[in-house]
């Protein structure tokens, strides 16, 4: 059983990879492949949330911030690539003679952009996480704080129209690292990159979860102070999980841009960040596949419900939130076990209380 378990998960990832990388491009129309690509981007971010929240107990309500870092880094590069040597069109009006803002300049380089997509979230989450975890900010405080950060960033971008495109966002990209985005073959390629990255992220957390670090993370989630008395600094443990989850959000954001073709502050603000969390909760926050599948399900639900019942689909979405969280605290991935009683889920996957009564007291005190 203990020997078998990793193989079950691994072959699950394998099957997932086959479906996403081989089957989907064959059977789906361009439109739905693009949509699936978009869901993959959210799923990548969701996998990170699963790590930070499901296993690490940090309710990261502001993943939009890191999603934005990746997305805007990518979007700035693609905008510049499309604009060539000109200043991007949207900037012209406000000050036709002013040069490109300095912080845009390095994003002309493809290498710098890729590096930024990886390093920006790591640095930002590193600093933020260090500051918060060392100060022992946690529970609801942490959740609200990160949420506020997402709102602040979204507002900031909205209000700097000349520098960032404001509320309209950045769009109309023609090129992707030299490839013409409109070309159907290239669209498939971009999709495959996103799907491939999702598989990589799943493999990464799979290894995390079965490693000692994974156990330590769960221990920190359940009794942070106690971990301290085993000689670890919980801040560092949480920091690692937080930074990795931020990195995944950034990667998701970066791929979102060429696939969807537009990035706006609305994709990173409060509502978007909460929707990311919701996907994770749907799927099962502490399980391996739950977050990714949940995020994809929520994305698909938005697309298809919105078409079926344009002025009432949010009722269904709202109701789903209520019903799933209320009845299935461990998400849809706990359904099979519920019906069959087939396996006892490993304790790490049973995070029912996101913070327990004792921590709540800490929060309130």
């Amino acid at each position, binding site marked *: 059983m203990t020997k078998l378990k990793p193989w079950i998960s691994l072959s699950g990832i394998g099957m997932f990879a086959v479906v996403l990388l081989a089957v989907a491009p064959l059977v789906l129309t361009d439109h739905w492949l693009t949509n699936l690509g978009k869901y993959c981007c959210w799923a990548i971010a969701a996998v990170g949330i699963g790590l930070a929240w499901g296993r690490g107990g940090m309710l990261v309500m502001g993943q939009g911030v890191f999603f934005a870092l990746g997305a805007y880094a990518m979007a700035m590069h693609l905008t510049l690539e499309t604009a060539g040597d000109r200043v991007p069109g949207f900037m012209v009006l406000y000050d036709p003679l002013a040069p490109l803002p300095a912080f845009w300049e390095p994003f002309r380089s493809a290498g710098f952009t890729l590096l930024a997509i990886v390093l920006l979230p790591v640095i930002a989450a590193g600093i933020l996480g260090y500051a918060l975890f060392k100060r022992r900010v946690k529970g*609801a*405080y942490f959740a609200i704080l990160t949420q*506020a950060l997402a*709102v602040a960033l979204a*507002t900031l971008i909205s209000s700097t129209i000349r520098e960032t495109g404001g509320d309209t966002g950045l769009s109309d990209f023609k090129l992707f690292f030299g490839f013409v985005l409109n070309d159907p073959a290239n669209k498939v390629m971009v999709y495959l990159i996103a799907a491939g990255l999702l598989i990589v992220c799943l493999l990464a957390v799979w290894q995390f979860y079965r490693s000692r670090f994974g156990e330590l993370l769960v221990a920190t989630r359940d009794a942070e102070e106690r971990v301290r008395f085993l000689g670890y600094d919980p801040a560092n443990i949480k920091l690692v999980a937080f930074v990795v989850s931020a990195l995944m959000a950034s990667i998701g954001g970066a791929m979102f841009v060429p696939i969807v073709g537009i990035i706006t502050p609305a994709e990173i603000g409060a509502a978007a960040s909460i929707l990311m969390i*919701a996907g994770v909760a749907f799927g099962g926050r502490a399980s391996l596949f739950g977050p990714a599948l949940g995020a994809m399900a929520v994305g698909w639900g938005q697309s298809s419900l919105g078409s079926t019942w344009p002025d009432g689909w949010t*009722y269904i979405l709202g109701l789903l939130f209520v019903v799933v969280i209320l009845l299935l605290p461990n998400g849809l991935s706990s359904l099979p076990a519920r019906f069959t009683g087939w396996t006892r889920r490993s304790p790490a996957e049973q995070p029912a209380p996101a913070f327990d009564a*004792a921590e709540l007291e800490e929060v309130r005190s």
Partner: protein
Amino acid sequence: MDALIPQLLNGSAQGALLLLAALGLSLTFGQMGVINMAHGEFLMLGAFTAYLVQQVIAASDLSIPVALPVAFVVAGLFGLLLEVTIIRWMYRRPLDTLLVTVGVSLILQQAALQIFPSQGVPVEKPSWLDGQLNILGYEWPLRQLFTIVLAAVCVAALSAWLKYTSFGRRIRATVHNRDLAETTGISTRTIDRLTFFVGSGLAGVAGVAASLIGGTNSQMGAQYIIPAFLVVAAGGIGQLKGTIIAAWAVGVALSCFAYWTTGSLAQVLAFILVIVFLQLRPQGLFTVRTRSLA
């Protein structure tokens, strides 16, 4: 200096509205640990109630004072309904209440959009709030003064209720340890319902005040919810005193930043200010530590 006085007065009014929006949260979130993201929609319910009351009592001079208690009861009843149907099952998973109530808020928003005219409904200010009060050479809108008075009355009533009745004690006890509270003879079900009723009702009162400031429509609640949570957190969860100071500080900061920078940047700066503050004082303005581990 000349510029500061108007910002201080103006900011105090903004803070008062924030406080009204946060007051109910300091009960349902601060005391009960429920992260009610539908609190903004309860506020919206209060505003729509004000509109409906004005449809019945045409004279706006009278209708607003009447609307206040009515909005309290209406929003309170909705809160009660939410508690009885959903929240009661969730006390042991506080962070999950956040997600469930996001769902509720989506439903309420869409319902409001479809029930009422989509562009919103008018709520008229009573004529006794027309005009300004001259303070230190600055014309201070009476409406702002009204918000402050209303907030003060609500705070006084709430803190008296918590302090001088046994309810306050029981609420805190229930929050701290439900099983222990039960076995001490407290009916935690009654306490839960009552607390949620009052907390949600306060949102209704805030809604009446908000309807005199901005639009009364399906989206109005959304703009208060995050700042209100921030205020509660910055004040120290469950600390009424802290909530008051934090609300006032955020209001004044918003007003001053808006004066020195821009309206949008002011929002950003105020948020950053609170975030930095919370980083420096992770448990908020007022904290009491216990010895418990975890």
